[in-house]
């Protein structure tokens, strides 16, 4: 029973990953990638990591939808209606990817994996939470601040309007001068 789950989800993940590069349409490519991620999330659930698998499904759906919005906004021919070759540097990228795959596969097959010591925790979610709140707290804090700084930095770099454009030279103008009105305090 359990290996049926593996043999359904794993080829699905690989096949839809391949389809990302075969589809002409940006929308289809994005959702093929989403299906690949959902299959990977399903595999995590099957491995007993229920929380991680469900969170992967949750996060990936949201991220792929947002990615679809940007891909379609920024790329020409988003529906793939005009048959265009979207691939660049065919031979070079093929060589690099085949070499990388061979290296990784060799590494996976040849490595002497250790045997399991102890037993899996009774409640994997609780064990994950306890680890994050205890020994891995420093990792969490560092990651949190790094992500936050990245997001703020990206927004600051992307927009060409700053505080002085919005609030005037004396920073006193209320409401701020925006091209689209917001909803708070107006």
């Amino acid at each position, binding site marked *: 029973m359990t290996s049926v789950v593996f043999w359904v989800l794993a080829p699905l993940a690989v096949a839809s990953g391949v389809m990302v590069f075969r589809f002409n349409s940006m929308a289809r490519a994005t959702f093929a990638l989403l299906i690949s991620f959902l299959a990977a999330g399903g595999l995590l659930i099957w491995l007993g990591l229920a929380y991680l698998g469900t969170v992967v499904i949750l996060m990936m759906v949201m991220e792929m939808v947002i990615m679809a919005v940007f891909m379609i906004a920024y790329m020409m021919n988003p529906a793939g209606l*005009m048959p265009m070759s979207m691939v660049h540097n065919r031979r070079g990228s093929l060589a690099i990817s085949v070499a990388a795959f061979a290296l990784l596969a060799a590494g996976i097959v040849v490595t002497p994996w250790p045997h399991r010591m102890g037993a899996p925790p009774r409640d994997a979610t609780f064990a994950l939470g306890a680890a994050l709140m205890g020994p891995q707290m420093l990792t969490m804090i560092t990651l949190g601040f790094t992500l936050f700084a990245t997001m703020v930095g990206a927004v600051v770099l992307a927009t060409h309007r700053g505080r002085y454009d919005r609030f005037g030279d004396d920073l006193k103008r209320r409401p701020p001068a925006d091209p689209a009105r917001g*909803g708070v305090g*107006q």
Partner: protein
Amino acid sequence: MGVTGLLVRAGAMRPHVLVAAMPGGAAVRLAAEAQLRRRGWPAALSPADADVLLVAGAAAADIAAAVETTWAAVPAPRVRALVASPGEVAAALDAAQAELAAGAPRWLPAGDAAVLPGANGGAASGAGGSHEAHGTGSHHDMGDMDMEMPGGLSMAERGEDRDGLKLDRLHVPLGPVLPDWSAGLVVRLVLQGDVVQHAEAAAVGLMEGAGSFWTEPWRRAAAGEPVTTGVAARRRAAAHLDSLARFLALAGWDDASTTACELRDDALAGRPAPSLGLAVRRLAARVARSRVLAWSTRGAGTLPPDEAAAAGVTGPARRAGGDVTARYRCWCRELSGLTAAFDDGSRLDPAVLEPPRGRLDGGQAPSASLLAVLPRLLAGSEFAVARLIVASLDPDLDELPARVETGHDH
């Protein structure tokens, strides 16, 4: 076909009706809406949702093509009803329901049914419309610009927008057949995303010599007939309620919109002034007081008074002097003021009680000046806001031919 016939007969108990309002057919449209409310039949929002296409009023030659495109987009089982006068509406709806329930679905032949036009007003198909060929394409390896795309469409051009993005430009015409929209109005939009980059307003389907339903008392008074202030006040209140109902439906407040429609019909039908006045004042106060509605519409479509004067705008649009919020609140204020005059038997004085959209004795019809200011107000607004702006001005295109003495059309 037994099961399908049963399903069709069951579904015909409550058909969805798409009311295509034609210029000159305002009275028919009002009767149709009242009938639909009484029967509990929903009004369809798009041809895909409709079973019955009710053409309210006579269709002139240039609007007939749009009606045909809309009809082609209605899926089977379907019935078309052409109604020319208000009294015929009930019979036409009964006949349409009977024909639907007759259980013999008229399916479109497979070849013709393959491609059906989009929902946006029947004047163009889907997002294809009138795209122009793509300009330069340096990094894709096609030398031949005559590449056939599916459906014969060419690739969309791109343009700058207010956020610095370059997005595809879609040419989307709104109207003439569109629910919650002025009859005969066509606004051609250039959309990038859902932001209107450019708009052009035009009128189609106007009939010579018809004259507007809403300004009838004033035209009769100008022709010398004795018209009481009460009749004119009721007609003007009904016009404001009609505009308000359309605006509230677009703003998503369906219950208030339905109340406005009922009061409009009551005012025209002669309901006694005390109870009618109370109900109208209550509705006007409720709408004017609504903070959520004001929050949604504040700052949109601002028409400064000097610009309004320059364009020749008169009436509530000029008096409100501001954005969409100010305009619908102006309607509410004027509605409350009009309730006092519902039973007034004195002779109508056009200088004291103006027609709904502005004075008729200016150089051009009041709605013509509204059409003139529309493009500038729409540019740069988002789609939902654009629809609200049009609804807050609510031009009545039936006024246009009646004012044109020289005889040519807009």
